[in-house]
Every structure is written in structure tokens, then in C-alpha cells.
């Protein structure tokens, strides 16, 4: 690991000033950043430790019915907050399906939004990677790319965004509150992450010094709480990144879908909201045929970036499964294996359906 200056400001203004310098990076828990620094993938000159900034570790209910989550709230604390988990069950399920208990105890909400891709070529500093070194080329393009993107990718970069948490966030219109050199502004989480195009090194809408201070969910995000799931296909049952994941939230009235929210993870360079698929469900009955039509709409623009054509069909199936489980009703208790597609559909017994 390259050495660095370490500063620990106590005000947001001081943090922004310290982090606006070239080569500076914010440090929260560091569960992703330290790993990248150990591998020489990221080589900051200065770490600006934000863990002691006041007021960023609260979950606040807002007067308008929304909720505001401080950027330093730990993933585990958010997922286990009883009111949060009841109001936004798919978000809690996504959080609990990510990483391990140790990492969820440390990792922060703000850090999760900004975690880097898990593309093996990005991590391997002996490989060419346009994201790590602009203009170097992309060894993933003709390499081991079974797990790479099928939506939103470019010739310059086929890496996927790894977050589980961000998938239901984009479905529920979450907004990031950002403090920067020119004051405070807000960016929808859906617009926070950029598609790679010719500049895959520019991953987000953040400017130098910008600090995510909070995340907000609008009041209507909780109207999906009775019919909300997050599902994730992994190479092993726990402690693995998604090959494909999907969230579905439905508002069902008198047997008709009034509103639907759908998003996919593991398939694109950013958490992927499926707006067109949502539109096919508005006013429809929650039937297998309607779910299949929505899933086809969600993947209509998909194309393989390598040896990963299977992900297009897999994503459709997992979306149909997420819709089916959401329509059956949010489980009364968090499933023993959060987001596992091997859970039963029953609301009262969300156990697994295979013998462990």
C-alpha cells in the first residue's frame, strides 16, 4: 500500500476542503477502499476520515412521510431498524443479502453507494483496465467475462456495479444529499452512477470534494411495503456478489397492480431501473403472463458483452420470481437466507425449500 496523509476533520466544511485536493479520498469504514489500496488498485495521497463528522449517523422520519438516513449509518443498523425494515422491506433484504455480518457492521450507507466494481481485471493491476487507467484498454472484453454486464456497457468497459442496496434504492426513487464546494445539492441515486461510454473512469456525478451526507426515500416509497422483495442469484448461498439480482415492489388494489417498481443488479454498470417494464404492469392483474411480459420488457435492450448471454434469460427469470414473491406478499419475518431464490413463497414460513 502506498503511504498517504491522514486527516480527520470535525466539520463538513473542513472535510470538503481537505478532500477537494487532487489525489484525496474520503475514508468512512474503508471496507472497500482499504481492500483496493492493499491491492494497489487505488492509490490516494490523502485520506480524509469522515467517521467523526457530527450528525451523519441518524435515521430520521421526515414530516412529509419520507425518511432520511445519515451517510454514516451502518448497513446492519439500517437493516435491523424495525420501523425501516417494516416500511422498506426490500431495502432491508438487499442490505442483509450483501457481504458478511462483519462487513455489514462496519460498512456505511454512503460508502455502499460509492463502492467500486468487482471486475477481476479492475482489481488485477497487471491487467489492462480503462476504468483504473484511462486509455489502457479492457482485458475483460475478450477475457473471463461470464459475470459482466449485459445492459448499459460500452466497448471501453463491461464491468457491473456490485451493490445490492442500490437496487431497491433506485426502484424507490431514493435521493442522495451532497455537500460540496458550492453548497448542498441533491441527486437521484438513479442519476448518481454514470454509464461508462468512453470515460469509464468517471463513475459518478460527484465532483472533487463532494461528500454524500444523507440518503432520502420519498413518502410513497413505503406504499410498496406489503408487496416488496429483493432476490439475488449467487455462486454460493451467502457472502457472494450477485450474478443477477432483482427487486420488485407492487401496489395492488382490488386485485389490480396500481403501481410497480422494478430494478436489476449485477447486469449493468449501474443499478438498473426498469421503467418500461414497470409501465407494462400498471393496471394489469398480477399473473405469470404479465410478469413474463414485464421481464421481457426489462431486458429488451440487453446484449451479451462476452460469454454471458445466459444472464439475459437468468435476469428475466429472477425478475419473474421476484414479482411472483412480491405479489404473494412481503414475508412477515426476514427470510433465514435473505434474498435467496431458494426460499418458499409462503408468507408464514419463509424457510428454504431444499434440504441443507
Amino acid at each position: 500500500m502506498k503511504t498517504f496523509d491522514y486527516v480527520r476533520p470535525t466539520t463538513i466544511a473542513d472535510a470538503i476542503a481537505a478532500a477537494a485536493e487532487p489525489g484525496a479520498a474520503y475514508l468512512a469504514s474503508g471496507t472497500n477502499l482499504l481492500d483496493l489500496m492493499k491491492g494497489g488498485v487505488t492509490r490516494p495521497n490523502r485520506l480524509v476520515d469522515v467517521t467523526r463528522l457530527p450528525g451523519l449517523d441518524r435515521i430520521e422520519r421526515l414530516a412529509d412521510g419520507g425518511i432520511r438516513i445519515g451517510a454514516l449509518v451502518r448497513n446492519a443498523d439500517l437493516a435491523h431498524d424495525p420501523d425501516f425494515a417494516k416500511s422498506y422491506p426490500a431495502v432491508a433484504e438487499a442490505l442483509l443479502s450483501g457481504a458478511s455480518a462483519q462487513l455489514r457492521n462496519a460498512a456505511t450507507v454512503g460508502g455502499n453507494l460509492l463502492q467500486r466494481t468487482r471486475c477481476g481485471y479492475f482489481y488485477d493491476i497487471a491487467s489492462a483496465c480503462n476504468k483504473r487507467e484511462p486509455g489502457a484498454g479492457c482485458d475483460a472484453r475478450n477475457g473471463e467475462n461470464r459475470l459482466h454486464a449485459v445492459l448499459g456497457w460500452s466497448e471501453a468497459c463491461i464491468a457491473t456495479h456490485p451493490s445490492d442496496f442500490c437496487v431497491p434504492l433506485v426502484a424507490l426513487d431514493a435521493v442522495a444529499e451532497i455537500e460540496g464546494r458550492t453548497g448542498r445539492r441533491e441527486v437521484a441515486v438513479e442519476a448518481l452512477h454514470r454509464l461508462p461510454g468512453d470515460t469509464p473512469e468517471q463513475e459518478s456525478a460527484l465532483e472533487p470534494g463532494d461528500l454524500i451526507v444523507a440518503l432520502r426515500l420519498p413518502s410513497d416509497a413505503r406504499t410498496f411495503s406489503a408487496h416488496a422483495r429483493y432476490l439475488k442469484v449467487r455462486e454460493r448461498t451467502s457472502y457472494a456478489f450477485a450474478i443477477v439480482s432483482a427487486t420488485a415492489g407492487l401496489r395492488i388494489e382490488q386485485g389490480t397492480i396500481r403501481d410497480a417498481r422494478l430494478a436489476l443488479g449485477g447486469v449493468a454498470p449501474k443499478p438498473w431501473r426498469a421503467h418500461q417494464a414497470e409501465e407494462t404492469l400498471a393496471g394489469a392483474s398480477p399473473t405469470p403472463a404479465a410478469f413474463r411480459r414485464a421481464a421481457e420488457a426489462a431486458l429488451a435492450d440487453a446484449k451479451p458483452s462476452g460469454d454471458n448471454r445466459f444472464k439475459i434469460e437468468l435476469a428475466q427469470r429472477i425478475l419473474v420470481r421476484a414479482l411472483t414473491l412480491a405479489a404473494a406478499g412481503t414475508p412477515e419475518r426476514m427470510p433465514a437466507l435473505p434474498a435467496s431464490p431458494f426460499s418458499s413463497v409462503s408468507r408464514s414460513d419463509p424457510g428454504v425449500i431444499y434440504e441443507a
Partner: protein
Amino acid sequence: MNFSISLTVNGVRRDVELEDPRVTLLDLLRERLHLTGTKKGCDRGQCGACTVLVDGRRINSCLALAVSHDGADILTIEGVARGDQLHPVQAAFIAHDGFQCGFCTPGQIMSAIGLIGEGQAGDDPERVREGMSGNLCRCGAYSGITDAVLDVQQGLVEADRRRSA
């Protein structure tokens, strides 16, 4: 540039001078405080061998910068027994053969203590397995580890019942 930090480790205050900000909490425990019970496995947050409790919560000490944890209260495997009296989780690991080579065991035990404290798994073996998934065991002692955690959990439930009776 030097950094002076102060930690409480297993109930004892420790003042440490760091001449380099790169020192992880894991390396501080092992190399500076000579508490080598906490193991360095992958050093990348993937195996769980370095699990310790920080302010009562289990984390991977290999992915924590020591300097960022100034003032923290840390519990390692060296601090869980009371003299010759093993912690109930330690005793249960022995009773249930929850290890073979032993390298992952300190991390497993600290993780299990953290899991029981979190109160999310209860007596459901599937929830225990999920809650312990951040700790790898190359010898494959998983079934013994799960039984050990369930045994301690059961003991707590019975102790609660006796207290409330």
C-alpha cells in the same frame, strides 16, 4: 507524521504511537500489542480469521485502519475467558468439535459472540449458518461450529427462563 492513539483492549487502556497511518487494527493487535490470537488469514476481508469486537460489534480488523479507531473499545480472543474459566462459546466449541486445525477458531469464536449479541439468529440453524458466513473454515468444521453456537444460544434461553421463573 506520528499519530498517538488510545485504545481499550480487553479492558486495559493501551496508548500507541503510530509512525505510519497504514497500520491496520489487525497488525496493531498482532505486531504492536503482541496479541497474536487474532489471526491474519486473507488480510482482505474475505475469511473472517481477524474478527474482533469493536465497541461490542464484530468487524474484520484487517479492513480497519487503527488510526481511525482512536478511542475504541476492543475485545479479542485473549480477553473472553475469565482466568481459567472459558467463555461459554469457547467451551461449546470444544464440546462440539467446532474446529480441527484451529487457525480460524479465534475469528469463529469472536464472530459467534458477536452473532449471539446481535440477537438475530435465535435457535434456527439456517440463521446461524447465514450469520456465520463471514468466517471460513478450511477444515470444514462448520457443523460443529453451528452446533456450538446453537448450544450457547439454548443455554441463554434456559438461563432467561430460570431468571423469569
